[in-house]
């Protein structure tokens, strides 16, 4: 075979691979939409999104409690995680002695890869009993436990990406500020953090998307009762957990509503990403 022939064939083969990959990705979206249609038409998006009762056996398919569960657990996790992660990023990028950084940096990166069930397991064994003792009631499976587990899982992601963007700030900025007599904290606060905020925004967006999509660790510590998360010491259920727990036994309309739940998750993640993108653009201008 001539090399020109092989060149032509190979070109076609990789083009086909490229198109297959694209088709798979499109197919996922179309399929989830298609499977959601019966519920969207039969029950209506309003009744699903804003219905607060989830009794699949009695044809009550409101996912508002789970939507609230996901959002509250994620927001609470961010409140805990973001200050700690940013503090840790500044610590590793600017404050820590080089020897400390050499040990902690790989450790933090390693933690991004630890399976989420391991975090969930430790949460179940240590955190839940602790929360049960603090609140005095229940088993400790609660919104608070879920938020703390999510916060710990998001820490390495947010911290390591933020640290990278702090490192990317040109050294002249830092030296310029210090030369003008700013303290090191003033330099960090007024020069470094503003310059790195695009990367920091990206880190927080990524961490939020991961948190809202986390499934098994949530099932392990949140208690999985579809009730409103009005009390952080009480159990709740997340959208992700709802799919995982019920899909195997669901049929008909119930199954279709679970696909709508998936669609809502999909849209939530897209919303988070677009908010991040808007913040990113605004900072750029």
């Amino acid at each position, binding site marked *: 075979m001539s090399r020109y022939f092989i060149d032509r064939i190979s070109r076609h083969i990789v083009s086909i691979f490229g198109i297959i990959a694209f088709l798979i990705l499109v197919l996922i979206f179309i399929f*989830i939409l298609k499977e959601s249609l019966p519920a969207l038409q039969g029950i209506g998006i309003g009744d699903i999104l804003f219905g607060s009762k989830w009794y699949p056996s009695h044809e009550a398919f409101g996912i508002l409690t789970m939507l609230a569960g996901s959002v509250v657990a994620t927001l609470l996790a961010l409140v805990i995680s973001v200050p700690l992660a940013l503090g840790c990023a500044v610590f590793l990028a600017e404050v820590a002695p080089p020897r400390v950084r050499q040990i902690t940096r790989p*450790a933090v990166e390693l933690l991004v890869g630890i*399976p989420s*069930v*391991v975090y969930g397991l430790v949460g179940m064994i240590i955190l839940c009993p602790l929360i049960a003792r603090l609140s005095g009631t229940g088993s400790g499976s609660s919104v608070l436990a879920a938020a703390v587990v999510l916060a710990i899982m998001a820490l390495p992601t947010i911290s390591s990406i933020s640290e990278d963007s702090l490192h990317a700030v040109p050294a002249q900025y830092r030296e310029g500020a210090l030369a003008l007599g700013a303290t090191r904290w003033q330099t960090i606060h007024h020069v470094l953090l503003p310059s790195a905020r695009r990367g920091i925004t990206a880190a927080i967006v990524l961490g939020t998307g991961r948190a809202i999509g986390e499934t098994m660790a949530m099932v*392990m510590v949140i208690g999985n009762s579809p009730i409103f998360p009005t009390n952080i010491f009480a159990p709740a259920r997340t959208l992700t957990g709802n799919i995982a727990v019920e899909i195997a036994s669901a049929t008909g309309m119930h199954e279709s509503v679970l696909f709508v739940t998936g669609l809502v998750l999909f849209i939530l993640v*897209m919303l988070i990403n677009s908010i991040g993108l808007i913040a990113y653009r605004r900072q750029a201008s």
Partner: protein
Amino acid sequence: MSFNPKLTQKLAWGFIWAAGIITVLVLLFIIGYVLTKGMPAISREFLFTEPQGGLSGEGGISSCIVSTLWLIATTMVILTPLGIGAAIYLAEYAPDNRFTHLIRYSVELLAGVPSIVFGLFGFAVFVLALHFSYSILAGALTLVCLLLPFLMRSTEEAMKAVPQSQREAALALGATKWQTITHVSLPSALPGIITGVILCIGGVVAESACLYVTMGGSSGMPTSFLSGGRTLAVHVFYLAMETNALDKALATGTVLIILILIINFITRRLSLRFQAKLRGET
């Protein structure tokens, strides 16, 4: 604001040190806790017997190890050529037009979609519609969809990092485009590509949500990629939720952490090699 700069400096420094130390300690504590509690329960018997089920969670994890290996093999056999092929197309052939932008956009979009949504898709398509039932194959195909965006991105980035001048030199010597790719671009980008592939293996090991709904979780020894199965990560979930054997869950968690440590070590070495190669040191 008229705070005393020196005082603010001290307060801020206190917070930063505290945040750094708390974060590192919390994370070290989790790993340390799992390893110290799990290590004593790991024995030859634990690794080489099947889980017996039941509330007390008797038995070991042999079938979970075998399921995990089957799943890694099946997933990677499909994912690697597809992901790398598609990335070669995007990096070397794709014209700069709307369609290419659309592909890139959908890859970006799907990289952020939660694992359980892929699980939902895999359950409906592979388990039900295509009649693979709960099987390693259904789990593997779902994982291919989940990991494809990641592998495409990491491979494309590795290929984009190869200097354009090297490609032009090969083309100027009369090589065809394909010869340039196989003899110049791919070899230079190889450590970066392999790093991406190994990280995908790490993803297979760590993943649980989309496998929980596509592999069925039977704890028996799988005989082929059409059997149902339960990976180590999913086993941790079952042990924690359905048995009292938290010690066995911690031991399985320890095995997982050790696997991730090994994968992390290999990728770290490879990416150092890749950076050295791009600088022209080897």
